[in-house]
C-alpha cells in the first residue's frame, strides 16, 4: 500500500508532507523515494531547455540579497523530537493546537482545506478511541508507539488505509501509547452515542 502512496505524485502540501514522513520512517521507502527522485533528476537533465527571461538572474540575486545561510538543526522539544524531521521542521516555532478528547489529542497541522486534512493524533497509553468510520479515505501512518483494533496491531512505520465504510475501535498501546499522522480526504465521522458528541466537537 505504501507503494501506491509513494508512487502517485503528491498534489498538495498535505499529501507531500505525508509522503515525506512516510519516506523518512520506513528505510525501504527512503530507498524507493531516492530512486524515484533520481528519475526526476535524470529527466531534468534530459529535457530540452526553455530560455528564461533576461531579468530573472537579477531577480534571483535581489531575492537572495542579505539572506542568511540556514543551518541544519532539529528540535529539542521532547514531543517534537519523536516526530519525523519533515514534521519537526514544519512545526518548528508553531503552536500545535491540540483538541483534547479525554485520552486522545488531535491537532490539525495544515490550514483547513475542503478536500483534505492532515492531523497529528496522540493516543495516550491504553486509551480507547470510540468506534468511528471515515469519510473518504484515511491513510494513517504510525509515527511512534503502536495501537490495535478489532483487526490487528499496527506498529511504528506502518500505514493503514481505510475507506468510509470501515468501522473500528482503536486502542493505544498500554505502555507507549501511539502518535500517528492521519491524511484524510473528507471529515472524520464518529459513530455511537459518544461518537456523535465527538463529531460535533471535531468538525
Amino acid at each position, binding site marked *: 500500500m505504501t507503494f501506491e502512496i509513494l508512487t502517485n*505524485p503528491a498534489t498538495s502540501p498535505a499529501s507531500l508532507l505525508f509522503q515525506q514522513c512516510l519516506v523518512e520512517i520506513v528505510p525501504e521507502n527512503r530507498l524507493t523515494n531516492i530512486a524515484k527522485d533520481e528519475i526526476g*533528476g535524470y529527466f531534468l537533465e534530459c529535457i530540452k*531547455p*526553455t530560455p528564461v527571461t533576461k531579468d530573472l538572474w537579477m531577480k534571483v540575486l535581489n531575492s537572495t540579497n542579505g539572506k542568511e*545561510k540556514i543551518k541544519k538543526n532539529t528540535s529539542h522539544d521532547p514531543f517534537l523530537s519523536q516526530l519525523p524531521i519533515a514534521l519537526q*521542521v514544519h512545526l518548528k516555532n508553531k503552536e500545535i493546537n491540540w483538541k483534547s478528547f479525554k485520552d486522545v489529542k488531535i491537532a490539525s497541522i495544515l490550514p483547513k482545506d475542503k478536500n483534505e486534512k492532515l492531523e497529528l493524533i496522540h493516543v495516550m497509553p491504553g486509551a480507547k478511541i470510540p468506534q468511528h468510520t471515515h469519510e473518504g479515505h484515511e491513510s494513517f501512518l504510525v509515527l511512534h508507539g503502536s495501537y490495535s483494533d478489532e483487526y490487528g496491531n499496527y506498529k511504528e512505520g506502518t500505514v493503514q488505509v481505510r475507506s468510509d465504510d470501515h468501522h473500528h475501535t482503536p486502542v493505544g498501546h498500554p505502555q507507549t501509547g501511539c502518535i500517528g499522522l492521519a491524511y484524510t480526504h473528507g471529515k472524520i465521522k464518529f459513530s455511537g452515542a459518544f461518537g456523535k458528541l465527538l463529531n460535533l466537537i471535531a468538525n
Partner: protein
Amino acid sequence: MVKVQNPFAVALVNIADSQDIASFKKIFDYFSPRLKSFLMKSGAEEGIAEEIIQETMTIIWTKADYYDPKVASPSTWIYTIARNKKIDILRKTRKAILENIETAVLPPVESKADENIEHDQKFDLIAQYLDDLPEDQLSLLKMNFFEEKSHGEIADLTNIPLGTVKSRIRLALEKIRGKLEQDGTMANLNRSNESNMIN
C-alpha cells in the same frame, strides 16, 4: 577509488562554504532553463514557472549546506526542491503554507566515513539503467515521476490497464532500488535509521 566530482556538486559546496556567486550563476545558467521546461510541462504558466525558479534558486542559495553529494546528485536535489515548491505554489494561491518544506526534501542520511563514492556514480548507474530500458517502460516512468501523473491518468492516456501500469512501474523501480542496494545505500539508510532512534 577515484572520487568523481560533479561540477554542480562542487558549485553547491562552494555556495555553502563561501557564498560564491560565480558558482551560483553556474547552477542558475544550467538549471533554470531546464526547470522552466519541466514546470511549464507540468502546467505552470510562464510567469509562475519563473517565480518558482526564483524561489528554488533562493532555497539553493540559503540551504546549500543541506546538500549531501552522498545522498543525491545535484540535479535530483534541485529537481526535488522545485517540485515541492511547485506543489506548494500551484495548489495554494501564492501563500507558502509549508514555508520550510524544502528543507525536508531529503531527510538527513548519515554517510559512512569510509565511503568515498560520490552519488554521481549511483546517478550514472541509474541513468545507465534508464537508458537501457525499453521505450514503453521509460515513458511510464517519465509520466509518473517527472510529469507527475497518477497511475490512473497514465492508464487513461496510454490505454494500458491500470494493473499493468502499476506492475510495470513497480518492476522498474525495484530494479533501480536493487542497483542502489548493491552500492550499499541500503546499509547506510538502515544504520542512519538506527542512530535516529537512539538520538
